[in-house]
């Protein structure tokens, strides 16, 4: 809808936007460009060295055993984190939607971990998942499992290279599943009761109602949650730092962690920049289509 611009109004609106536009242009797009440039340079010591070397840093990365492990860990982490959070979040939302006494208390409990820093979460879960040893005794979750008679579920958690990042995924699910629950709950509440009634009248069982009526209607929420959790997952860093570090055999290492270490400890700035660019590309694959689709859809409304 065309609007009539009065004299000067256009200028004022642009001026109001200008500070933010400049800031974002420089600090986001300009900086990304510079990082890209550095990733193609030879700057791998403390003193900057901007000689152009093409994709050498990228090729070296993909051949680097640690980076290969990082990518694999990231895939495992993302899969567990997403499915865990979505499943638990959805389950809790469905349950809470059923006129539960004390609902707000439950909601508060399920959601509070999201208000915590990943550092706090990491510090606590590091202790919770310290397995202890046969000589000194169990501790943390292992100890708890023993106490309630589920001792056979004990694990080395992040000290066991076969488990590694999966243990971190548990802590991450703990932190973010409440968010998913909140999203789904809002979504469920937005579904008119008449729709469910109509389905019930038609003879559908509760389960069928969920499967064929409710879930499809919740698809936008599921999509939104996947996007948000997905991009958090690809960027995951703080949690690793506080909870496990790279772990035995790099079983808990992730690209973001490798990036920081190689840049600020080993002075390999170009290599760090290359990792950053790869991370950016992965996130963009997820985000850009969603952004374009979302904003365009809104514009149509």
């Amino acid at each position, binding site marked *: 809808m065309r609007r009539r611009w009065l004299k000067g109004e256009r200028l004022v609106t642009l001026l109001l936007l200008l500070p933010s536009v400049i800031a974002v242009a420089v600090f986001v797009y300009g900086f990304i460009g510079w990082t890209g440039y550095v990733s193609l340079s030879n700057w791998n010591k403390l003193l900057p060295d901007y000689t152009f070397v093409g994709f050498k840093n990228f090729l070296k990365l993909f051949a680097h055993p640690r980076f290969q492990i990082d990518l694999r860990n990231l895939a495992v982490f993302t899969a567990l984190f997403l499915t865990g959070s979505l499943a638990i979040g959805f389950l809790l939302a469905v349950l809470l939607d059923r006129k539960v006494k004390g609902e707000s208390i439950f909601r508060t409990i399920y959601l509070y971990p999201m208000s915590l820093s990943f550092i706090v979460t990491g510090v*606590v879960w590091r202790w919770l998942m310290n397995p202890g040893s046969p000589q000194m005794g169990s501790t943390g979750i292992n100890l708890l499992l023993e106490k309630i008679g589920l001792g056979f579920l004990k694990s080395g958690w992040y000290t066991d290279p076969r488990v590694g990042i999966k243990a971190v995924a548990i802590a991450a699910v703990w932190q973010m599943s409440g968010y998913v629950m909140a999203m789904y709950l809002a979504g469920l509440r937005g579904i008119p009761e008449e729709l469910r009634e109509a389905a019930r009248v038609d003879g559908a069982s509760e389960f069928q109602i969920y499967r064929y009526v409710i879930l499809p209607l919740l698809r936008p929420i599921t999509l*939104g949650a996947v996007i948000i959790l997905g991009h958090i997952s690809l960027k995951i860093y703080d949690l690793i730092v506080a909870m496990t570090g790279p772990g035995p055999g790099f079983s808990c290492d992730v690209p973001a962690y490798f990036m920081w270490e190689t840049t600020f400890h080993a002075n390999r700035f170009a290599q760090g920049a290359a990792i950053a660019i790869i991370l*950016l590309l992965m996130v963009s694959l997820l985000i850009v289509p969603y952004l374009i689709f979302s904003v365009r859809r809104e514009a149509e409304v």
Partner: protein
Amino acid sequence: MTALRHLRWHRLLLYLILIGFAAFYLMPIYVLVVTSFKSFAEVNLYHMWDPPHSFSLESFKKALFGGFGYTGLAHNLINSFLVTIPATLASAFLGSLNGYVLSKWRFRGSNTLFTLLLFGMFIPYQSILIPLVQTLMKIGLYGTIPGLILAHTVYGIPITTLIFRNYYATVPKELVEAARIDGAGVLGVYTRIMLPVSMPGFVVVMIWQFTSVWNDFLFAVTIAQNPAVQPVTVALNNLAGSYIVEWNVQMAGALMAALPTLLVYIFLGRYFMRGLLAGSLKG
């Protein structure tokens, strides 16, 4: 009768599951609190779950003010406030202006502009870290609190803009038109129509930003490494990784680092929720 009993069974199971999950979410807080109140003599990794025999505040004192070989978190908590509050206010203010313009004064390309802006909220910050450090060093703000404030303000703009844009979209266009007919310009409409009703929007944005900035680690650890200006997230991580710090002190430190955002969430949870929902791109 069997239908009724069936129903009771279902309800029981429902509550059991809900309570079970509640225990899962509360378990870490339990350890955190219980360990913080134990004295050093009593704290023991292999009796993690036992409640304290006697309550001791010694770990809080040490966590705040230091012990043998380490300084406490007190000044880091202050640093966190010094960074979080200005950054929150600044990014909220800018977000409000942007959200206003982008929702009420659309022009050709404003949607594209908005998308480009929004992208900034999703980027991995590793992709701007090196130039950020170099730039801050060039303008002399590296390793300072203002430098950290600048970073958080700028990178907070996308999310604050999003929340405000969605919020202002609910303000009826007629009000804006009416004010324009009365002769108000762009800024006039803002001050006369938008600002008075902005309070809930500001609350949501500020709660969200406060939590975000307070909990940040990456910018803090990259920009503010000097112990004197470290925010509490970095200091906590250092505290928790050191081998001279007693375990109960580490837990007490974690508890205190978590307290501000936790309290905000508990008392202002309603706005926190709204921020969550506004943060999703569904209008």
